[in-house]
């Protein structure tokens, strides 16, 4: 099932469904990279609120998305990791140390807005 990507201002919002397959994750990676360039996005929120399992493949793909889009000048926020998913991620050994995370979509967008407002120059 393709992951819907919405444009809101200069941000992109990707909403992940409960059962994200490996091919969905890879397709998301390709599409976000393509859209960042096309719409000149400066920020991306990947909303994982509905995602009930974050395994090593999904984690690696989200990390790759964050790194690749960063190289294109867009910040990626992973928003809405559920408490039980976070618990399992820690047991699995999956860390998002170098990735921005937010409690939910609203917090993710607020973070991107703050960064845009401050020019993002002081957060290198």
């Amino acid at each position, binding site marked *: 099932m393709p992951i819907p990507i919405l444009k809101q201002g200069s941000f992109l919002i990707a909403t992940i469904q409960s*059962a*994200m*397959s*490996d*091919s969905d994750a890879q397709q998301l990676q390709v599409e976000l990279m393509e859209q960042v360039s096309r719409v000149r996005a400066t920020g991306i929120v990947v909303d994982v609120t509905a995602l*009930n*399992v*974050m*395994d*090593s*493949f999904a*984690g*690696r793909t989200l990390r790759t998305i964050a790194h690749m889009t960063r190289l294109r000048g867009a910040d990626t926020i992973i928003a809405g990791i*559920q*408490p*039980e*998913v976070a*618990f*399992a*991620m820690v*047991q*699995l*050994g*999956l860390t998002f140390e170098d990735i921005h995370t937010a409690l939910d979509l609203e917090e993710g967008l607020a973070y991107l807005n703050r960064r845009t407002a401050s020019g993002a120059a002081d957060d290198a």
Partner: protein
Amino acid sequence: MTPELVVPVDRADDIVVAREAGRDLARRLGFSLTDVTMIATAISEVTRNITSYAEKGEVRFYVEIRKRRSVLVVEAADQGPGIEHIERALEDGYSTSGGLGLGLPGARRLMDEFEIRSDDGVGTTVVMRKWAPLDA
């Protein structure tokens, strides 16, 4: 023992099928949402091992009763090339497929019991167990 359920695995999309089947069964056995999520994550990892290394296999689910508790048993079996260095495959960060190398050691941490049988030319079977709560 007859499996409760068997999920054939021969493409990456079957990973989702296997973990959702395990999730449903675990929920029926009375596991907490945290346990259910850990079980589903572990199933995802061992099933991906099948599609990454053996292409074809199956995930079998059993329910055992031990000490008056239900135990969910997940068996991920393939007839692939086998794992050459099981000890190393259980170390964090070891991968021969370009992955993160968290799959097997991570699955072991997520479950209560974990064993691997692997033989050259015969294939690999991962057996994992999680004990349901006493009051379930």
